[in-house]
């Protein structure tokens, strides 16, 4: 069985600050990580690999050269191979152009039974790329998956809704988008880190290599353009931290609420 996992290298938003003037992310000095939902996607693929024989997991990403670190990390977690789509022609891609490029990468890899994506990336929060890839490839998709079961030639998944879940079955090949409830990702192994950086399991490919449709990639191939980004102004108000142990804090809180005639 061949599994492809799409991952994105993102800035660790826990450590990201916003430039108050430009309204853009300050990326300098911010560590890059594999997008958290994508790690759940990868973990699920690796669990299938642990459980069944003859499973090959290929990790696919689009990004600048340093995104290779994300592929190394994926290999250190247990993936077999990594492919990085890296080309100036991809720069400035929106979700449409990104999914076009990734779908081209998937066609280049060829044989696949399952494609895993994370639900959404923490630096964009669109949740569009996974579903778009499935549409480009003309295969079924199950999004927001919290539980997955392999049956003969098909999958059964629990797809999460706000107040419950669907149980959905689909024929393979199928694209799954993972949420964090799906599993607990493993750590990369120390040995795997050395293996990953040897580089012989990672391929870096250009737009031409994967025959990506050049009218639909990069900035020019992106139907959405960002005109302006800004941080909404915070509403005023006084914040005060109460001191002491929880009991004292609770007592103080009640006194204050009474003073303010809230209770």
């Amino acid at each position, binding site marked *: 069985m061949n599994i492809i996992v799409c991952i994105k290298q993102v800035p660790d938003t826990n450590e990201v600050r916003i430039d108050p003037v430009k309204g853009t992310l300050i990326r300098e000095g911010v*560590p890059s990580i594999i997008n958290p939902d994508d790690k759940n996607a990868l973990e699920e693929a690796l669990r299938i690999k642990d459980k069944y024989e003859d499973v090959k997991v290929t990790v696919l990403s689009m990004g600048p050269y340093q995104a290779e*670190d994300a592929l*190394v*990390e994926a290999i*250190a977690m247990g993936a077999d191979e990594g492919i990085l789509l890296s080309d100036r022609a991809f720069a400035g891609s929106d979700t449409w152009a990104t999914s076009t490029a990734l779908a081209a990468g998937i066609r280049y890899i060829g044989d696949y039974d399952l494609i895993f994506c994370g639900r959404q990336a923490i630096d964009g929060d669109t949740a569009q790329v996974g579903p778009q890839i499935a549409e480009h490839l003309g295969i079924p998709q199950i999004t927001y998956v919290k539980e997955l079961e392999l049956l003969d030639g098909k999958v059964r998944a629990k797809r999460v809704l706000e107040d419950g879940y669907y149980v959905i079955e689909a024929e393979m090949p199928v694209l799954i988008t993972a949420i964090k409830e799906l599993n607990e990702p*493993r*750590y*990369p*192994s*120390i*040995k*795997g*880190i*050395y*293996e990953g*950086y040897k580089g012989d399991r990672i391929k870096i490919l250009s737009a031409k290599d994967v025959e990506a449709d050049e009218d639909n990639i990069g900035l020019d191939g992106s139907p959405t353009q960002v005109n302006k980004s800004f941080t909404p102004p915070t509403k005023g108000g006084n914040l005060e931290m109460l*001191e002491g142990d929880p009991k004292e804090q609770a007592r103080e809180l009640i006194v204050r609420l009474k003073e303010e005639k809230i209770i």
Partner: protein
Amino acid sequence: MDFKLSKEQEMIRTVMREFAENEVKPIAAEIDESGRFPRETVEKMARYHMMGIPFPVEYGGAGGDDIAYAIAVEELSKVCATTGVILSAHTSLACWPIYEYGTEEQKQKYLIPLAKGEKLGAFGLTEPNAGTDAAGQQTVAVLDGDNYILNGTKLFITNGGEADIYIIFAMTDKSKGSRGISAFIVEKDYPGFSIGKIEDKMGIRGSSTAELIFRDCVVPKENLLGKEGEGFKIAMKTLDGGRIGIAAQALGIAEGALEESIKYIKERQQFGRPLSKFQGLQWMVADMATAIEAAKLLVYRAAYNKSNGLPYNKEAAMAKLYAANVAMDVTTKAVQLHGGYGYTKDYPVERMMRDAKITEIYEGTSQVQQMVIAANLLR
């Protein structure tokens, strides 16, 4: 000169930090309190190839180097010095001598399961009457047909009672003094080998420190490590490397204490402002950080020398001497910065201060390190 870590080493630091934060830190206070050996952590470390970092893949290792290994011990020790020393004693004191002095058969039989973390290792040199004077070994080994028969007692053995494989030193020829000492690979189940007293310690309380008792213990002849009479040399060379691990542990303890202190003094308000706004305390933090940085360079340099085939006897001794000193000093200041709270178990710095003390004592006291350094300078 290049002070940059390799990409591999950087990623290993990130992974070790994440592992330490998520898997080790949550139980650090509990294992300190109860003195429970964290077996589950050892199993997790094995799963991620953390138990044999500097050894080649064909011998079950991760194929890494000594800097990566030092980083692993450092990151674990930031949150839990117990876990740091379990890894250090296992890697430096048990795996390494087999890797360096073992026959191919011994490596196949013992190093591979040790480096994979399927088995845990320990090192038994110290005796009730042979501490710093390690040459005064009273444990004896007598060749009897195909076996050596060991008699004697070892004391303060890290991972003792928890380990499966022990590197044990014993006299094979008393008349030759330190040149009459030999090293043996001893399995925990060998007849005549038992575990005595488990020490109730001031710090690193989750780590097992045990007495090992050998009463006519039967050790197959092929488990002699190196040649007869090479034991003292093997022990001293092994401890040279072990000191890098302990220096990394001390470094980690100090870093952990500094991190806790910075967090605390930014939060704690007195006189209407955070403690971090008081210049006297700022100066303390600046000194702590500077000492830590100096210790770090000594530790990494010693590890670099070891990985690159350069001399490291003096460098490892300096790293351990200095890093242990810094660990004690920084953790003491960390408690001071926490004030009354720092003296309680509600904050981890009192544990770190108790843990720091051992780094000035084991694998050669600070005075032994000074002897080693001076011997290098004055020969």
